Each structure stands twice: as structure tokens, then as C-alpha cells.
């Protein structure tokens, strides 16, 4: 019998650490998942409601028992309300992250966050211009302050649209307005989700879901987009660069500091502090050859994109990084951090350091991070890691060999630059048929899917069929681990795409950043649609989230579809308890926003669905098959 590790992941480094975990009697997410099986059917179908204390209520999916909650809510209503709450949570996570970025930006402009500065001035001015903030006769500081206030106002806006939604093509904007789903203030939409789903408020499934689309748009073209833009101004807009990924980036002889979570506000400072001469000296004194910072999840993607800081792994590799026995500190901020890290780090010498005022976990050393003394705090965190180096027990250390090169940093700006300044060469390649279309593949890992199997196979299948792939989040890390983010990976692409990649010297899979950077994909899609004079929904493009698990992914899926891009989900969302909701999501939305969802766990079949949609769009545009 093959060891379980083989069924759990396709990645050799992950398998090696899973075997180590088994040998050491250490529990991981996969073991905990097994103990959860079989999972509750009501939950899987989305037909359980706990929104008031007359409940919990649940609907019998086979029609023998209760067909309504105490208040009379049907399966359709309950499923729709639950979905809306998932969207609200996802949009809240992205947008609250954005708020913190803007607050840092604002504090920086007021001189209260001295560790930060402006790295991309051109972007600062172009963002200001979008808000009609004049640059004439004004200092950079004044412009920064005014832009920060304008951005901050988006969260509590009560009137008028969110500014960056104006980046969408005219036809899309008109459609949103007609449907009444043009997002207003970011916080407002999220609050309204909670209001509508309170007992006895919104009780029509379609009506509920339309607000879901609006809320998701306030994330994609609001919160997420603001986060991306402000972070670019503060830390620089990513440009192509080389880096390495996978657990093998951890060092045998250096202090390993893992940055895990989502916000670059912290990780940027850690990366800087790791180069501090006094700390490097201290590291030497403690017997280490240096300080090695490596990322996990999207905070890792942020520093990877801007500095080429290595990445140790995807979401499901967070525990395995600790299991190498070589991590001095696991430094976390917010989102996708497993509370299991608390007891796990207790089995090794690893210090589990929580930093966000919003997020604490069991078993942490708490070093709260505030922008006012960002660099100082970052140094304290790195010092804690360095001082922990002598506690590493060599007999517990085993670092996998796998360490893969990758080329990253493809912001929308960088892609346009690689194309020579305009999207025209890409459009020509698509029109000529050498590139069939664009596939946006994103999302998490999920123990329900063999780790990275969905990601890697779906992307390979797309490039083989001449679909240029843009990627973010854990899909990007998975692709990097599988060697798909190097220019040489063009050899795995179909003839047409291969030619284009070789001519431009780019990989067939372009890493566009973290999960909030899916907003970069929207900007790129919008630029292409505008250049062609069509709507986003007319483009030969399709999206996928092969291994999604988080509520953020639900919000992302909803804004991608609402923006006009057909999206295939690799794990089943909890909506099948309502045939009406499932039908609306997978068919009905086509007639509303020009795109819909599909659910297909098999990555090969998912690729076929995306290819079919791309062909359909090509045909409608009069492009050859």
C-alpha cells in the first residue's frame, strides 16, 4: 500500500514532510480532515440556518421532513442567505486589509509612519489623477494626503460609485447600473449583507444573490483594488524577477523566519530587518550563517513579487514548514493562518509570533505591530527568531531538497511593458489564434483535493491548449513549485503560445501576485476589452479556482463572474440544497451578467469547460477557431 502522503499531495517536498510528520506522530490538517469524515450533509448542502434563536433550522433535502425553517424560510432562502454571508466575510477580509494599507499610507503622509515611504511615484500621481486630484503647484505630501483621504472615504462612502469601478468598460458599468448592482461604499455593502440576512429581512433568493454580486464588486473593484494600488505606491509596482520556491528554500545553517498571512505592511519590514547589520551580527554570534526570510500564502506572494523573497509553500504547507524542524519563527498577521500552528510549534523549537491587533492564536508570542514603530517592531521580531536559533535540535531537522526556480512579478504594468507598452501584441496573438485566450487560475488549497493536483493539472492543460495563464495566490505558488513559472516551461505549451513566450522571454504562466492582486487581472482584462471596444464578457477568457476553500474565494468568484468572466470551481460550494440557487449560479447568471459558474472537481474536465467557453467567445468575436 502506498503511504497516505502520496495520496495527499503531488509535491515531493510535501510528501517528504508528511512522512516525517507520520513518523514523529504529528497531526496535520489531513489527519484532522479524516476525523471530520463524514462531514455534515446539511452543511455541505447549505440548508442549515442559525440566523436566529428559534433555530437552528434545517431543511430535509429529500423532501420527507421539514421543508421550511421556523420562520418559513425555504431551502432557497436559507442557501442564498448563507452564501451572502460567505461573500460578506470574504469581501470584509480583503477590504479590511485594504483599509489598513490605506491607513498606513495616510499615516505615512502625515509623517507618523516613518518606516514607510513612496516607492512608486508615477503610480501615486496616476491614482491621484483618477480622483481628479490636481498635481499642479502641489507638493507630493499634499497630493499623498489628499489621495489617502479620498481612498479612505471609499470605505464609508454613502453616495456615488466607488472610483475604481470606473476602470471597467462602459458597457459593463451600464449593465451594473441597470441591474442595480453598482457598488456603493465598501463597508456599506458588507453591513447590508448582515442586515439582509438577519431574521425576517431579505427573503427572496434572487434578490439576495444580486446583493451578493454588488458586495463582491465592492471587493474586486474596491477593497482588493485599493489594496493592490496602495501597496504598489508604498512598496513598488512589481517587475519581473527571479526567485525560488518550496520547502527547500529553508536554510540548514541560517535563521529561518517564515512570514505567513496576507499583509505586506508587516512582511516588507521583516524583509528589511533581516538585512539589518546588528541582527546579522547577532545571528553570527548565535552560530548562524545569516537570516533567511521565506513566505507562505499571500504575504509571501507580496514580498516575492517585489523583492524575490523566497516562498516556502502554499496554504497546506504551513504546518509542514514547521515540521522541517528548521523554522526559528513563524510570524503571522491575518487570514489563512491555521490555529493548529499553536500546538504544532509547541512540538518544535519554533516561536509562533502573532502580530496583528486583530488576530491572535493559541500558543503565540505576541508582538503587536503598529505602523508608528514598524521597523523597530520588525527588528524585535527578527531578533526573537535569531535568539531562538541555538534552540534548534539538529536531530529533528530535515529540510526537503525541492527548491524550484521561478520568474515572478507580472503586474499589469509589467505585462504591458513586456508587450512593448500596449496590449496590441497580445490582442494580435489572440486574434491570429496563436494564443487562444486567457485563463485566470487562482485560489487556495483544500484538503478535499490532493494538494496541488487540481492547480497544476488544470494549468498544464490550459497552456498545452495555447491558453495564456495568469495566476495569483496559492495557485501561483503551486505552479511555481511545479516549474511552470519559468520561461523554459514554454516547452510544455502548445506551439502558438510557445512561440509567443519565446519571443517575449516570458513563462506561459504569469504570476500576478497575491489574492487581492486578482484586481490586477480585472485591470488587465478591462484594458484588453477597451482596446477591442468590447465588454469583458466578450473576451476569450475564463477563470478557475481548482482548490478553493476560503470565504474570500467566494467573494472573488462572485466578482469575477459579475465582471463577465466564466469561472470553474474545483470544490463544491454549499449551495446544492437549493436547485433554484444552483441553477441561477450555473446558468441563470449568463443571462444577467454574461458569465456564470461551473463546478468541476476533475482538472482535466475543468480545462475542457474553460476551453469550450473560450472557443465560444472566439467564434462570437469572429476569430478563427
Amino acid at each position, binding site marked *: 500500500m502506498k503511504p497516505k502522503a502520496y495520496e495527499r499531495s503531488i509535491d515531493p517536498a510535501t510528501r517528504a514532510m508528511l512522512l516525517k510528520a507520520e513518523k514523529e506522530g504529528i497531526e496535520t490538517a489531513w489527519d484532522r480532515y479524516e476525523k471530520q469524515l*463524514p462531514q*455534515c*450533509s*446539511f452543511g*455541505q*448542502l447549505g440548508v442549515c440556518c442559525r440566523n436566529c434563536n428559534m433555530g437552528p433550522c*434545517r431543511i*430535509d*433535502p*429529500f*423532501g*420527507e*421532513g421539514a421543508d421550511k425553517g421556523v420562520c418559513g424560510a425555504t431551502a432557497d432562502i436559507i442557501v442564498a442567505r448563507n452564501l451572502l454571508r460567505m461573500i460578506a466575510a470574504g469581501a470584509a477580509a480583503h477590504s479590511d486589509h485594504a483599509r489598513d494599507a490605506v491607513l498606513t499610507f495616510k499615516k505615512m503622509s502625515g509623517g507618523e509612519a516613518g518606516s514607510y515611504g513612496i516607492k512608486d511615484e508615477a503610480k501615486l500621481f496616476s491614482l491621484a489623477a483618477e480622483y481628479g486630484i490636481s498635481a499642479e503647484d502641489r507638493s507630493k505630501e499634499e497630493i499623498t494626503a489628499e489621495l489617502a483621504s479620498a481612498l479612505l472615504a471609499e470605505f464609508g462612502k454613502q453616495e456615488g460609485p466607488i472610483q475604481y469601478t470606473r476602470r471597467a468598460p462602459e458597457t459593463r458599468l451600464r449593465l451594473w447600473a441597470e441591474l442595480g448592482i453598482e457598488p456603493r461604499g465598501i463597508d456599506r455593502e458588507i453591513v447590508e449583507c448582515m442586515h439582509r440576512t438577519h431574521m425576517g429581512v431579505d427573503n427572496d433568493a434572487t434578490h439576495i444573490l444580486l446583493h451578493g454580486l454588488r458586495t463582491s464588486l465592492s471587493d474586486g473593484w474596491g477593497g482588493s483594488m485599493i489594496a493592490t494600488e496602495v501597496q504598489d505606491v508604498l512598496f513598488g509596482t512589481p517587475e519581473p524577477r527571479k526567485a525560488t520556491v518550496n520547502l527547500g528554500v529553508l536554510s540548514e545553517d541560517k535563521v529561518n523566519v517564515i512570514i505567513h498571512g496576507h499583509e505586506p505592511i508587516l512582511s516588507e519590514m521583516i524583509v528589511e530587518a533581516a538585512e539589518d547589520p546588528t541582527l546579522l551580527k547577532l545571528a553570527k554570534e548565535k552560530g548562524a550563517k545569516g537570516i533567511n526570510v521565506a513566505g507562505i500564502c499571500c504575504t509571501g506572494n507580496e514580498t516575492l513579487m517585489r523583492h524575490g523573497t523566497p516562498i516556502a509553500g502554499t496554504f497546506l504547507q504551513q504546518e509542514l514548514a514547521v515540521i522541517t524542524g528548521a523554522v526559528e519563527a513563524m510570524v503571522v498577521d491575518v487570514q489563512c493562518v491555521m490555529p493548529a500552528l499553536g500546538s504544532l510549534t509547541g512540538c518544535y523549537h519554533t516561536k509562533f509570533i502573532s502580530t496583528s491587533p486583530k488576530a491572535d492564536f493559541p500558543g503565540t508570542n505576541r508582538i503587536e505591530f503598529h505602523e508608528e514603530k514598524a521597523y523597530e517592531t520588525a527588528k524585535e521580531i527578527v531578533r526573537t527568531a535569531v535568539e531562538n536559533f541555538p534552540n534548534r535540535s539538529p536531530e529533528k531537522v530535515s529540510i526537503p531538497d525541492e527548491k524550484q526556480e521561478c520568474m515572478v512579478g507580472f503586474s499589469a504594468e509589467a505585462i504591458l511593458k513586456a508587450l512593448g507598452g500596449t496590449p496590441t501584441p497580445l490582442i494580435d496573438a489572440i486574434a491570429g489564434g496563436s494564443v487562444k485566450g486567457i485563463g485566470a487560475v487562482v485560489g487556495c488549497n483544500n484538503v478535499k483535493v490532493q494538494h496541488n493536483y487540481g492547480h497544476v493539472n488544470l494549468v498544464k492543460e490550459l497552456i498545452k491548449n495555447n491558453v495564456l495563464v495568469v495566476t495569483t495566490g496559492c495557485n501561483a505558488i503551486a505552479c511555481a513549485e511545479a516549474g511552470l513559472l519559468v520561461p523554459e516551461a514554454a516547452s510544455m505549451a502548445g506551439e502558438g503560445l510557445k512561440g509567443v513566450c519565446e519571443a517575449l522571454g516570458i513563462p506561459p504562466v504569469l504570476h500576478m501576485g497575491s489574492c487581492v492582486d486578482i484586481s490586477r487581472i480585472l485591470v488587465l482584462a478591462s484594458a484588453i476589452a477597451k482596446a477591442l471596444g468590447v465588454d469583458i464578457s466578450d473576451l476569450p477568457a475564463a477563470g478557475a479556482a481548482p482548490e478553493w476553500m476560503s470565504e474570500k474565494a467566494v467573494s472573488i468568484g462572485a466578482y469575477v463572474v459579475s465582471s463577465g468572466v466564466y469561472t470553474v470551481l474545483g470544490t*463544491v460550494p454549499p449551495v*446544492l*440544497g437549493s*436547485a433554484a440557487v444552483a441553477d441561477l449560479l450555473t446558468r441563470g447568471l449568463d443571462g444577467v451578467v454574461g458569465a456564470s459558474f461551473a463546478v468541476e472537481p476533475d482538472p482535466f474536465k475543468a480545462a475542457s469547460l474553460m476551453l469550450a467557453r473560450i472557443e465560444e467567445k472566439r467564434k462570437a468575436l469572429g476569430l478563427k477557431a
Partner: protein
Amino acid sequence: MKEVMVRPERCMGCRSCEIACAVEHSESKSLFAAVGESPSPRKRIYIEYIPEHAASVPVTCRHCEDAPCTTVCPTGALSREEISRKVVHSPELCIGCWTCSMVCNYGVIGRQKEARVAVKCDLCPGREVPACVEACPTNALVYAEVKDFSGIKRAEAALKLARGMKPGSAL
């Protein structure tokens, strides 16, 4: 033969067993596909709620040794499988007279609405452990030989006695 034995004190009333039963007896045997099937798959285990005791009790076919349902069934649709000792039902012989329902002490002979025939527990042919037992998160359902189950109960009672507690009191 192994039986589905019930430990009612452990039941939380989540109805996971009922759904697992219906899914197991669906065309597709998959939850996500079964919800769309027509006719709807039927469950054969029932959670009965007793308000006075605020208790949920799983009730399912006892596969009685001297089964009244098989005795009264006029067509032989209900019969005992000689080797497995299960009480089984053949829908093609069933005329929908509900005589069996009248004599079953447990009320566990249900009705397949569309086909108008009886449905009852078949202990999930082809499965090592019946679907309801596997689905129960608290092990309120146990698939065991009566002698083994009684052994467990005896051990529990003995433990309580040993602790100076009265047997039968709450765990």
C-alpha cells in the same frame, strides 16, 4: 449476524444517519447528485423526537428473528434471507397493502411515494458498515453482533458498579 444497535443516550438529533441512508439508497450514491434525483431517495432510519425528555431516538428495523412483517406479507415480498438472516423486501412483489406496517412494532416500514411500495432497512448490501452507522458523529449507532454489543454494555455497567454508581444512570 451484526445488527444496527442504538445507544439513544448518545444521539444528538443531527439526522446525519437519515441523510446518509437516503443517499446510500439513491441512484447515484452521491449527496450532491442525490438531491436532484427524481424520485427522491427514501431514508429507512428515523429520528423520533420525544419532547418530554428532550431526547432524540434513532429507530430502525430490528430484523426481528420472528418477524411479524414477513409472517403477514401476502405476496412474500417480505422474507428472511436464509444465510444473512436479514429481513428483506422485494419491491417487485410488493402490492402496497401496508399489512406489514400495521404489525411492525417499530413503525419502520416506510412508503416509496412514487412507486407506492414499502421501503425498509436492508442493512446496505455491498457495504461493510451500514451508511447510517458510518455517518453518526457520536457513535450512537453501532454495527455489532448482539453478543459483542451486550459485552460492551456489560463492561460499561461493571465499570459503573466498580465506581460505586448505579447501573443505568447517565454516563
